């Protein structure tokens, strides 16, 4: 299943357990994987039409008494078109809205820059009170949905990855907001990633291993609040590589760098992510190749980086 279908299934399960959960969408019920949800819970699923500003405002109103209200649309629309509504209703008022940015990063492929989620983390994490969660695979999307519902306050959930994002967690685990997960332990460098890039980072670590470089891989599913201890541990041990399907400005790389800059003996950092441009569209695998976000290309960049050090 793709990320949106998993999200829809998770919402069905959540709604079966709690009656104070609502979903609003801006004419993207079906695209958000919520078709079954809307039929199962017609009195808890509302379509506000193509009106993202009102989407956030109405979600905030529905959450005014504490209900958990999930609001979905494409990542740039919820984070930027409705950015100020998010700031006022979620940031300033701290209302219990869970904004879901679907198809973030490059997954929407041929739709191009209007629909890509390139800057959503940067916007969301700069707004006080908002927790930013970027699940790495289907199992983690389910955990994130439940964790978000259990958290009293605003959350941004960023969905990435294509139709068949491979699982990155071999075993079940406890998901804790703000507590990263070390998926692979290595001695030389640490790769910190989130969302669909966790899988590609593991692939990169395998390739590096074959080239004599031992890499840790950390799934930083929570960009805010950032797991400072994990960043400190990585940055004091060796070089840090951040990998994200987001602009290299203001996202995970920026968040890690902000923390690292406070450390006295931190190693340097390599930022891998999307460049500060609006490029041409293509299919998802073409885009990942073009921007060097496959396991092979991530490994190659890391080896070049280590050579220069």
């Amino acid at each position: 299943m793709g990320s949106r279908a998993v999200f829809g299934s998770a919402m069905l399960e959540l709604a079966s357990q709690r009656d104070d959960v609502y979903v609003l969408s801006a004419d993207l019920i079906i695209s958000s994987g919520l078709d079954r949800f809307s039929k199962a819970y017609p009195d808890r699923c509302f379509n506000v039409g193509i009106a993202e500003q009102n989407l956030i405002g109405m979600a905030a109103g529905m959450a005014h008494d504490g209900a958990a209200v999930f609001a979905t649309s494409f990542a740039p629309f919820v984070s930027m078109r409705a950015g100020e509504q998010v700031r006022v209703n979620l940031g300033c008022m701290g209302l219990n809205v869970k904004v879901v940015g679907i198809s973030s990063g490059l997954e929407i492929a041929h739709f191009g820059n209007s629909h890509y989620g390139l800057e959503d983390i940067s916007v969301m994490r700069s707004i006080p009170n908002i927790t930013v969660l970027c699940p790495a695979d289907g199992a983690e999307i389910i955990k994130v949905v439940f964790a978000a519902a259990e958290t009293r306050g605003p959350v941004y959930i960023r969905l990435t990855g294509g139709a068949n994002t491979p699982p990155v967690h071999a075993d079940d685990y406890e998901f804790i907001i703000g507590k990263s997960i070390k998926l692979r332990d290595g001695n030389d460098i640490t790769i910190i990633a989130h969302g669909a890039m966790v899988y590609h980072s593991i692939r990169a670590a395998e390739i590096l291993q074959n080239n004599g470089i031992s890499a840790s891989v950390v799934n930083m599913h929570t960009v805010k609040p950032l797991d400072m201890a994990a960043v400190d541990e990585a940055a004091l041990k060796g070089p840090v590589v951040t990998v994200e399907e987001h602009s290299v400005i203001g996202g995970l790389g920026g968040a890690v760098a902000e923390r690292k800059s406070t450390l006295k003996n931190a190693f340097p950092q390599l930022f891998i992510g999307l460049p500060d441009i609006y490029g041409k569209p293509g299919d998802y695998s073409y885009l990942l190749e073009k921007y060097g976000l496959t396991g092979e290309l991530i490994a190659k960049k890391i080896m070049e980086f280590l050579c220069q050090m």
Partner: protein
Amino acid sequence: MNNIFDEARVKTMADMMRRNILDMAYGCGSGAHLGGGLSVVETLAVLYGAIMYFDPSNPADPDRDRFILSKGHGVLGFYAALAQAGIFPIELLETFQRNGTDLASLTVMNINLGIESSNGSLGQGLSMAAGIALHAKSREKTFRTYVLLGNGECNEGEVWEAVMSASQFKLDNLTAIVDDNSMQSDGTSERIIDMSSFSEKFEAFGWDTASADGHDVSSLYCAITQRTANGRPKAVIAKTVKGKGVSFIENNRDWHHNRLTKSLYEQALAEIGASR
């Protein structure tokens, strides 16, 4: 409480509110949104003095009617209404626009003080009110949600997004009041964005409407309370005068946000029939 319309009492409340407004604006020692604050006085006196249900000793009462001040710039009138309604002590008004205050230049959500939302960024309150009303329907709650919009604020596109949704979701438990003083920050609305007839616009989107003289408490009371449970949200267009009650503030864009000097304060008090 409320649900009884005592015209004389509501008029007295409005008079007291105007006095509170001038005291706050002068007392804070800096500029304040006097024009919009004075135009909403009667509307808020009617809502808080005769129409809305609330328990002054328990502002978080889950059954309370909700009020959203979408035109956050109407704070002077709003704070005065909350104080006159007994939700917080009159003395708290002295903290208006002081450093670190809860009574800021534009509202900051504080349920214990009866402030349901943070406003000032215009055009957002109707969406929130519609969300509250939709949630109330979903929970089969019988309270009503009121929201006060400014005419200038209705330039914002989000207002009309919310207008469409409120109609679509059949929110007949929602009342929007447009404080139509025909002015906005830069001057007369006719010369900036001429919104023409608000009634026609709301009706075109499937709302019930009523018009009122926004400084006549009986007219407001009738317009706001006449309603039918027909699945339509209700819009009341309250025709008002920006800065109502003080000659040099009325219809004067310079007083959208300005500072009262001692002599102007004294003149204003005299004009509203209050003594120092």
